């Protein structure tokens, strides 16, 4: 009996290591929809198993720092890729800028707070949310936008909640728990948000538009699938999926 259990344990141990993924992808949590679709296609095409970790850009960066295995990195803004490059975690010539990330103001359907622009975030009668400036890319960008427009001092004490992930912002707006949030334009096209929120464009002169890059990590350098995946998500075929989920390709500039 004891022998059998031991054998079973050994078997389970070996079986589990045989199921390890062929490719590990770290992706910004806000890119989940297009990434899921592209990964499913990629798996089918190459018969490979892809594991994905979705997290805030800051979290992904921290996991790389801890030496977690990751072959391809796609954070919410280019800054993180370039910071990782500085630390020697990224293969430089593998960096591709894929799509634009455009901040917008999301309000619940019908705009119950009568929000008209960035300055309303300083109005104490309006409940507002932004991402935690230290964690998701959208939080950092939102703070930059308010600072750049001289609003941060007034907006900062008036924010009701700093969400640790961008998906939480989406939930709060869709569920009408806040009157306004700064969020990525592409997120608002998600089916969750459909029919539940309106989008206010930020004046392009006041806005800060980011790009989403993909890159192979130095850990993934030897993995042929990493290069293939990196190329696939920035290919024409990949861009069509990005577009479907509301992202604007960089090359259209």
């Amino acid at each position, binding site marked *: *009996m004891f022998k059998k259990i031991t054998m079973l344990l050994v078997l389970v141990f070996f079986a589990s290591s045989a199921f390890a993924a062929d490719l590990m992808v770290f992706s910004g949590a806000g890119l989940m929809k297009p990434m899921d679709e592209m990964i499913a296609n990629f798996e089918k095409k190459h018969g490979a198993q892809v594991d994905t970790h979705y997290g805030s850009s800051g979290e992904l960066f*921290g996991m790389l720092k*801890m030496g977690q295995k990751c072959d391809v990195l796609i954070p919410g803004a280019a800054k993180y890729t370039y910071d990782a490059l500085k630390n020697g975690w990224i293969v430089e010539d593998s960096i591709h800028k894929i799509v634009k990330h455009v901040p917008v103001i999301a309000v619940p359907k019908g705009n119950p707070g009568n929000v008209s622009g960035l300055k309303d975030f300083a109005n104490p009668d309006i409940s507002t*949310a932004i991402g935690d400036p*230290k964690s998701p890319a959208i939080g950092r960008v939102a703070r930059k936008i308010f600072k750049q427009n001289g609003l941060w001092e007034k907006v900062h004490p008036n924010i009701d909640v700093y969400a640790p*992930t961008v998906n939480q912002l989406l939930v709060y707006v869709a569920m009408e*728990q806040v009157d306004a949030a700064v969020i990525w334009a592409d997120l608002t096209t998600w089916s969750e948000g459909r029919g539940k929120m309106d989008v206010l464009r930020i004046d392009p002169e006041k806005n800060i538009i980011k790009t989403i890059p993909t890159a192979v990590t130095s850990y993934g350098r030897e993995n042929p699938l990493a290069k293939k995946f990196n190329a696939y998500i920035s290919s024409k075929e990949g861009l069509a999926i990005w577009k479907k989920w509301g992202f604007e390709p960089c090359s259209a500039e």
Partner: protein
Amino acid sequence: MFRRIDFFRGGVIAVSVGVTAILLMAIGSFLIVPSWGAVWENMHSSELLFSLRLSLWTAAVSSLLVMLLALPIGYALSRFSFRGKAVVKTIMDLPVAFPELVLGLCLLLLFGKTPFGKFLQQSGLNFVFTQKGVVAAQFFTALPYAIRIMKSSFDFINPRIEFVSRSLGYSQWETFLNVTLPLTKSGITAAGVISFARCIGTFGTILILAGGSAGKTDTLPIHLYLNISYGNMDMAVTSGIILIIVSFMAIFIFEKTEADL
């Protein structure tokens, strides 16, 4: 015959010791990772002290509220049969199996834009994105555990002792206060300690209902999560160590009371 029993005995003990060893190694590896200088420094940082204070006072308030309600509910479930008792029991037990995130979403919806939520907000009880929300989140997460412990410790008290008290002319309330409560002292301690530990450890419910904003609603587990997401591992590990210490103390006291969960 004897060999077989030995195999059985050896097997179950080996499994227990093996799993304990893995857990110990997991906790141990947490203590190897950080640089202790940084941890010591972080212990004194204002952010961590804020989170610690917030965790302690919210957990104290919520576990007090939990106990105030777990006592009557546990007693009712243990002693009386009434219409809908099965429903009450099931619903009260539900949050034990509920993922905390789901519970958080449910509470957010209830306290947010429903007429009930608006009524509460007008009466000064705004639970959405506030420290009051932290207390509410902890309360609903810990309540079912406390009710279970209280019910089973009331179950252990022989109702005959209460009958004797009643037959001597004491009212139900006097009997509860002077006979039942003192007999269940260790149950109350156990339920209180487990509630407190559960409140300290509440994460998902707080994250959704209270928002998890740094410097406002970040209790220790949220503080840990935020610092993982900032890539600040030393700080994350520091909050983790404090959480481990609190859990150890709670379980130590709980074991002393020898109550059943």
